[in-house]
């Protein structure tokens, strides 16, 4: 396939306008020994037709087994939720899909207004004053939040709960590799060990980071943790699943300075891990240190309302090494998907959805608890995920489930080796009562 337009005749005319005999003359200063030539045994072949490409990709995709053609109980930072047909239909419109960062606002009002709507929804959902136009994903949003706290406080130490997503903690470590990061363990009930947090809190601490609901699905006592952080003037950073906020108190209400999240549950496919959507919101006082794009309202020459990228002096294209972040391209199309999804849900739909997740997860947990040798690891209240331990090895459970077309919960042995035979189970609105009971009877049969 080729997507170029120039005919041989046109090429000739263009070359003659340029004043060269052949296109090679235009790149003759590339050293000749650096020129590319296809390798005989190489993986790059000659181009093929659209028909052949589609057949090849269909073949590859059919080698995957998905949580849609099986029954899935996997969550852990990536959630299988219902996505209305409206979302892909609208985000695949070429006018949204093939535009770029709205540098020329007069010709980009669609993207800009949608982003302004997104910022409003996210700020309000998290109970914060402001939200930005998106970051890459939840993990890098968490790292950016920590960087903001380091800049804002001038301090060098980060406290992060061990119940924060393990991959988020790894990302934090990479981004903040010159700073001291202390992990706060969890107590018997699976939530942040408050006395350990208190022991580690002092005037060197830039921020306290928690996830709520935490990685085990449990609800943290955000109020108390926030107050502890505040006493030492450390910023309080909360990572929260946006769907849970349909019923749970938003981070802004219990004292968070920065609230971030993974926006994938808001109308974005699992996609084997990406592209997802980094949500970033905070208190107004941190506005000038926020990473990434921000859209604001303004007026045009005729006093008509319009939208522009604003506060750009924070950003890399102007401030270079002194910028608040290096981010340039973000996840605009995913932010649009989330905006459309949240518009379809509305306040009542979001609450219903969150309640459905909560109730179904509790149906499963109650039923599993009844099985001999299976126990819920923690007693704290939870949202749509919970940890189960049993006498069976997770690998055995996984295999047993798979034979019956069920993708089981996550084996926690890699991330939490201290929890023996533990698995993290997730239930969403996509799991029917029948599927839940089928899983229970399978586990009983082990």
């Amino acid at each position: 396939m080729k997507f170029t337009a120039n005919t041989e005749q046109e090429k000739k005319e263009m070359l003659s306008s340029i004043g060269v005999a052949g296109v090679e003359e235009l790149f003759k200063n590339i050293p000749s020994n650096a020129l590319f030539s296809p390798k005989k045994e190489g993986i790059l072949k000659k181009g093929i037709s659209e028909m052949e490409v589609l057949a090849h990709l269909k073949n590859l995709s059919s080698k995957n087994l998905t949580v849609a053609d099986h029954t899935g109980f996997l969550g852990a930072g990536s959630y299988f939720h219902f996505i209305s047909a409206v979302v892909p239909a609208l985000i695949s419109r070429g006018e949204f899909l093939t535009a770029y960062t709205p540098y020329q606002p007069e010709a980009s009002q669609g993207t800009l207004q949608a982003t302004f709507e997104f910022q409003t929804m996210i700020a309000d959902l998290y109970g914060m004053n402001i939200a930005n136009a998106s970051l890459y994903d939840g993990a890098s949003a968490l790292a950016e939040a920590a960087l903001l706290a380091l800049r804002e406080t001038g301090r060098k130490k980060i406290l992060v709960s061990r119940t924060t997503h393990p991959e988020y903690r790894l990302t934090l470590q990479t981004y903040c590799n010159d700073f001291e990061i202390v992990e706060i363990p969890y107590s018997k009930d699976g939530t942040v060990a408050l006395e350990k947090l208190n022991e580690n809190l002092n005037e060197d601490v830039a921020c306290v980071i928690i996830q709520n609901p935490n990685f085990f699905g449990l609800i943290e006592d955000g109020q108390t943790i926030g107050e502890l952080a505040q006493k030492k003037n450390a910023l309080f950073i909360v990572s929260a699943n946006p769907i849970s906020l349909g019923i749970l108190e938003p981070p802004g209400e219990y004292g968070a300075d920065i609230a971030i999240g993974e926006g994938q549950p808001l109308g974005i496919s699992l996609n084997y891990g990406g592209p997802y959507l980094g949500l970033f919101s905070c208190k107004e006082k941190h506005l000038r240190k926020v990473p990434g794009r921000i859209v604001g309202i303004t007026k045009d020459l005729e006093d008509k309302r319009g939208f522009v990228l604003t506060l750009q002096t924070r950003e890399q294209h102007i401030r270079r090494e002194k910028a608040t972040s290096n981010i340039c391209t973000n996840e605009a199309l995913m932010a649009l998907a989330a905006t459309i999804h949240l518009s379809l849900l509305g306040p009542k739909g979001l609450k219903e959805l969150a309640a459905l997740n909560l109730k179904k997860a509790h149906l499963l947990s109650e039923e599993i608890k009844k099985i001999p040798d299976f126990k819920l690891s923690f007693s704290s209240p939870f949202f749509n995920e919970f940890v189960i331990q049993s006498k069976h090895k997770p690998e055995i459970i996984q295999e047993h489930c798979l034979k019956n077309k069920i993708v089981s919960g996550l084996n926690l042995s890699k991330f939490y080796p201290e929890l023996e035979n533990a698995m993290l189970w997730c239930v969403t609105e996509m799991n029917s009562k029948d599927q839940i009971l089928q899983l229970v009877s399978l586990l009983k049969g082990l």
Partner: protein
Amino acid sequence: MNPQEPLIFELSVRDRRALEFPACDAQSPEVEQLIPEKFLRKKLPQLPEVSEFDVVRHFTRLSQLNFSADTNFYPLGSCTMKYNPKINEKTSSLAGFTDAHPYQDESHLQGSMELLWNLEKMLCELTGMDAFSLHPAAGAQGELTGLLVAKKYFKTLGENRTKVLVPDSAHGTNPASANIAGYSIKSVPSNKRGRIDIDALKNVLDETTALVMVTCPNTLGLFEDQILEISKLAHEAGALLYMDGANFNALVGLAEPAKLGFDILHLNLHKTFSVPHGGGGPGAGPVGVIQKLSKFLPTPRILKEKDKFKIMLESESTIGQVRAFFGNTGALVRAYTYILSLGHDGLKDVSENAILNANYLLSQLKDLFPPFVPETCMHESVLSGSRYAKDGIKTLDIVKRLLDYGFYAPTIYFPLIVPEAMMIEPTETESKKSMDDFVSALKTIAQEMKDNPQTLKEAPFTTPVRRLDEVLAARNPILKWKQ
């Protein structure tokens, strides 16, 4: 012209609904019995209450307020706004890819992993690099990744190299990424030919230099023709040579960066490899390295054992992760589809036509807007409107007027070293006719400058809104809607 589209919140009517869910089929206690009251949300978020049709019409109308590559010539320099083949959208939305959970067992995901493995190999072959990581979410994150790879490499060697050299023409992300990676940054001036000033480079290159970051071709659209010399100097000083591959569209299928002496590079798959830009993302910023650096690449990585693909979650020497999960896989499927479609012959056709188109435009425009460096260019050219600035017409005014003629604006005021810069990248997929139309619009505008300069000052006239006051927005930031 388009009447103003209200905000979705302004369309809200109490109790109006769109998406509904089936009733809960599980016998379960109520929310209040499952969660203690103190943890419950007291006030619903201010989301709009609208019908499905309201949503569809609102966002369809919003889309119509955008210029886009599908609807307009979009010569935004350094962004490579080429045609994004529709087949990419179809393949990346196959359910086998979209409904795969990142924590499924690797035995479930052999299709995705085979694709990603192949893509890594293809990018290696195109760049001459020995290993690739598909993990970074965008170009700037790729830069950060590459910089951290270098940092870890020098740490392993026990060398204390703290400085990164960045040309003054570089993208702002280069110094910003180097800063996050913990380096100090030294700017290297360009010479009159728009290339790195070799003497200036020699002056700052020393045993504390970790990397020399070079955009190739550079942001002036010029091939850094002393690259072999730069490479020699950097390596003699014990530093590594980094390539910002944002402009790889000029080299794809034509030249291999590794053979130019580069040790690390990132590519922007949303530029060269036709992943749609989405109004500002998502992209993907894979990083390629030479052999001795490969063990430092981020995890997770894909391994191949016999005919099976496996995921390596961690390793001893890796820099770690810069995000959760494997990568922006949805974007990677699109790039893979594109490379497969075009093949090495089609990719060479891409760079050749990108260069041809850029030079054709340059030849047609250089009398009106002289290039910063008077020679042929690679895939884009940087012209200057400074001769008109004397009469009070800024490049900003010129490109705002272009919008009235149906053309998106080139990148302006970048690179910073060019006064009244206009960076024009037509890409290979634009036809001669659309470029001729663009040239004739600019010629008309040049005439308007003489006859009626006020028109330019007040442009645009035909867009959904007239010229917007960006100063007002920054002075009085209103960043969310309030009732």
